[in-house]
């Protein structure tokens, strides 16, 4: 791994931490809080690719586990990592990796549609599959019940997929970092 890759990995771990500093927006009607932080894994995967993107989120999680309050709302430490939402924490790293894998695959013909679908698959389908499974085990409820419980959060995630897609395409035009078989 080149020095430049390490710096990019550190950069997106830091960016994910900074995204946690933005105050959460509360959605009207449902009252579900939406934080900017989960944009981090989407951006890391879509801009750095699978390996570097996934590692940057792993690095971010290591720092949280070390006891730094980097999660939105100034949370951190092992309590949040292995608590109820633990599946989503570990899922972030996997989701960044999957997003990166798909974006790399479509890199030479990347457009709004396949970029958005890649980010939505990794950032919503894969992430919720892992997160809900964890919740189901911890709360002793069925997988289906956990999925229904998580549904209100989807609105925020759809918005984030749109933002990440636009950002990924803009960065691809001006500062491409994935050069797949170019």
């Amino acid at each position, binding site marked *: *791994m*080149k*020095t*430049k890759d*390490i*710096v*990019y*990995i*550190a*950069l997106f*771990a*830091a*960016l994910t*931490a*900074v995204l946690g*500093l933005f105050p959460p927006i509360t959605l009207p009607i449902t009252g579900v809080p939406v934080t*900017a932080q989960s*944009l981090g894994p989407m*951006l890391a995967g879509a*801009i750095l690719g699978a390996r570097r993107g996934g590692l940057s989120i792993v*690095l*971010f999680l*290591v*720092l949280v*586990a*070390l*006891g*730094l*309050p*980097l999660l939105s*709302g100034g*949370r*951190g*430490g*092992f*309590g*949040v*990592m*292995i*608590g*109820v939402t633990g599946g989503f924490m570990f899922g972030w790293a996997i989701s960044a990796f999957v997003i990166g894998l798909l974006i790399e695959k479509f890199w030479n013909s990347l457009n709004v549609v396949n970029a958005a679908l890649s980010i939505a698959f990794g950032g919503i389908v894969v992430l919720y599959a892992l997160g809900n499974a964890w919740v189901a085990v*911890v*709360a*002793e*409820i069925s997988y289906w*019940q956990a999925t229904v*419980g998580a549904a209100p959060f989807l609105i925020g995630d759809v918005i984030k997929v749109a*933002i990440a897609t*636009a*950002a990924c395409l*803009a*960065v691809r035009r*001006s*500062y491409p*970092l994935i050069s797949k078989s170019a």
Partner: protein
Amino acid sequence: MIAGLYIKGNSALHRAQAGAKILAMVALGTGVFLIPDWPVVGLVLISVIALYRVCGFGWPVLAAQIKPVAWLLAIFFAVQLWLNDWQAGLLVITRIAAIVMFASLVTLTTKTSDMLASLERAMRPLKPVGVNPEKVSLAISMVLRFIPVIATVASEIRDAQRARGLDRSILAMIVPLIIRTLKMADDVADAIEARSFD
């Protein structure tokens, strides 16, 4: 520098090895999942709460650890009450509370630097499979340095976009932020290589 969540103290738990505390946490986490009786798990929870007192933490510290998951616990209890019975509900919430409280206690009683030192020790055997502890340490210290830099760049961009009437647009904020920091990352990488790291 970002302050960790560590709270100063001189209890046995404060003095214990970080690695030992993490192992204890894993053992407790696994243990409470293997025990299917709520009174036993309840006793574990009470012991964990007692440990907070032993470490010299007052009720406010204890409450702050459980508060973020309190509403989830309430929901889980209600769901179990509806699906099964109150015993099942108590088992689920005492179990989660015990794990979260103990894990938080490990974080509260261990300095980030000690945690980092045991991480470095734990990584040493991984060297043959391509994990380079020096590079991981470099990456960790870079993240800590980048966070305030990115936050500063973000506030500069926010001011610039406000002048253009774009301060409500997240995209007008995030794209310049990524590109500017990527350029900075390239300079940092050049600087590291110029000093013969690697």
